[in-house]
């Protein structure tokens, strides 16, 4: 059945995201928070994240573009990005932020710029992944099915 297939695809897809490190256990936590009273919780939170991260990334671009780079400020932004990405389980983004902060600590502008690019890249990638995920979910819901919960051995 199509529904079943879609559901299976969803499960497989989600698993692959974990395998590839895009997502970590925190995402499961997020999923667990979703319930009947908040059926779109995950979607809302993830959307919020991307909104927020976009702002942060823009700020970072601007900050790194300054003649006198304010590393404290940059560190603060990156720290926040790290926090929010980790909260939704976007592992690769989080890791990129950690690396970014290291360069910040030593005030290495080049390193920071590189990291910024990496963070942007990771955000972009995981955003796409999420979009696929949500699309699958919507298809399932549209077909009257229920989104299967992922049981991962975390």
């Amino acid at each position, binding site marked *: 059945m199509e529904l079943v297939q879609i559901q299976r695809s969803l499960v497989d897809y989600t698993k692959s995201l974990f395998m590839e490190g895009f997502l970590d256990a925190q995402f499961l936590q997020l999923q667990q928070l979703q319930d009947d009273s908040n059926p779109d919780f995950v979607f809302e939170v993830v959307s919020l994240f991307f909104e927020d991260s976009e702002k942060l990334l823009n700020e970072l671009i601007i900050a790194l573009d300054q003649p006198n780079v304010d590393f404290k400020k940059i560190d603060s932004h990156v720290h926040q990005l790290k926090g929010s990405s980790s*909260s939704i389980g976007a592992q690769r983004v989080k890791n990129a932020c950690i690396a970014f902060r290291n360069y910040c600590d030593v005030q290495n502008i080049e390193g920071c710029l590189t990291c910024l690019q990496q963070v942007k890249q990771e955000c972009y990638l995981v955003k796409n992944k999420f979009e696929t995920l949500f699309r699958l979910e919507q298809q399932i819901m549209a077909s009257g099915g229920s989104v299967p919960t992922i049981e991962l051995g975390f």
Partner: protein
Amino acid sequence: MKNSSGGKGSMSTASSITTWKAGDVVPVPDQFPAGLRVLVVDDDPTCLIILEKMLRNCSYDVTKCNRAETALLKLRENRNGFDIVISDVHMPDMDGFKLLEHIGLEMDLPVIMMSADDGKDVVMKGVTHGACDYLIKPVRIEALKNIWQHVVRKRKNEWKDLEQSGSVEEGDRQPKQSEDADYSSSVNEGNWKSSKKRKDDEDETEDRDDTSTLKKPRVVWSVELHQQFVAAVNQLGIDKAVPKKILELMNVPGLTRENVASHLQKYRLYLRRLSGVSPHSCNPNNSFMNPQDETFGPLSSVHGLDLQTLTATGQLPAQCLATLQAAVLGRSTAKSSIPMPLVNQRNIFSFENPKLRFGEGQQQHVNNNNKQVNLLHGIPTTMESKQLTSLRRTSQSIGNVSMQVAPHGAQSSQNNSSLIEMGQPLSRVQILNDSTVPLSVGQPIVPNGIAANVSTRNGIPENIRAPGYNLVSQTSSILNFPMNHASELPVDSFSLRSTPGMSDHTSKGAFHEDFNSEIKGSGGFLPTYDVFNDYQYKSQNWELQNAGMILEDSQHSNSLQGNLDLAQSVLVQQGFPSGQINGQNRSVPIVSKAMFSAGDSTEPGNLLNVNHHLNTIRAENTVRVKSGSVADGNPSNLFADHFGQEDLMIALLKQQQGIAPAENEFDFDGYSLDNIPV
């Protein structure tokens, strides 16, 4: 999932507890902790929304803010509207720690800090600023499920304080308590219940204004406030200091009798601690005594400190006397004349430290020099035997120290040194110095600050090697009041060690030990002996303090002096609390006298006297000692004690500010002065 509504019944609570305990994901069936009013503050919208959802899932009543200012506003508008606050550390408009401070000061709610940052420093900062917990992001729902424990714990501690302070107020909270007690029993394994029972038995310790809120807004005892409190208490006299009168004297708007009562409770405990542990029989260290018999004579004639008389009158346990004498003899000149500027509270403070340090070192040495140890043997102290032994050891030095302490005026250190030389095995001293006495007492306190003071006083033994005596520790009990989180200064940090100008008295170390022991033990030494018994308090701190002081003294002849000063200051300090300790006062004068004599006479005996004195004073009323300690041996400086204490506290507070206070071991919740700008 909800249990019977009754909720308050133990039974239902118990079952809910059981359920809860079982780890069910089911929200607490009973009232508590369901409905716990949580305020969550985080500038990150993603995190904020996740937290909110998680907390909702825990059946908590959640309010979220993305700005610290907003959070504060909400809290101020509705002081009793929240049970706990969860805040992020890094926020744009206000540092999370600042918010933490504000909340602690104004509302005294439990605050949990959160951050993606898990660096040790940051977490430590959280601890020192008084956060009751620190969560690392990403926060899992499991971590949030148990946050109610912090609320319960805080309340429990508050109640306990209230109980202790003896302020019996109505127990509106009773019903709530029972509920909480039951509930918490699962967490605290019955402690809660027992404390609750106690409460019931005692007919409620505190009247909570708002019974609906488990927590009453607490007063944060800032340094100034505490000073006022102490002044009021001193004015009334520790015996007569009742919360109501203190409150009147303090005349602080917004302060309630309950606040004062609970603070008084803690203060008393602190004083108790200062005065040392229950006095044990002061068994002079036999070995110690022997060599010193001959010097006994001089001992007797220690300035004003007529140990023998004291002994005769039963005030000073004979054993202690002997011990003291022995110690003094050993030290002789060690520090007989350490002028102890009692007036300078800071000094007192520093005395404390050196003492402590000394004590610490002593402990270590205890094993080494058992002989000496005996000196303090008899001294009743809650000290651990180890400490005791170390004290003993120091007793010798203490003897010297005491001498020093007593004389405010700069007593010639020669005396001390002679004392020290007398029979003090240098080794001991050495050991003391070298050993880093870990403040087992757990009084980490202002070592550095104190040391500084000590040195200023007068060449006070720089060598207070005792690592980390936290004079403060002693004070910590007191100081801990305010400093609640006062980090216990690591023993190692006893800067006292560095007593400047201390001539090297090898015996110092030993001296200190003895001294410390003396001081610590106090009990035995002075009339307060009995008194000490009363204070079965963890005298560790106390002792340490003494030790620290003594240690310094013993260090060198100079140190003797310094020690004396220290001792004096310590005494003073002690006096203060002792003042509080009922009945102690009277003995103080005697002690102080003794001390003075000790100080003045460079005789070895003085030291002992001093030590005793110190100890006694501690127990008694350092205040008295102080007065006496001033060079003129006039116990009129009782006030000094008070003064000293306050200063000490302030000093401690200040120190604490600079120090990452370890969690207040005395569990004085209300005194999270650390980080509060003084």
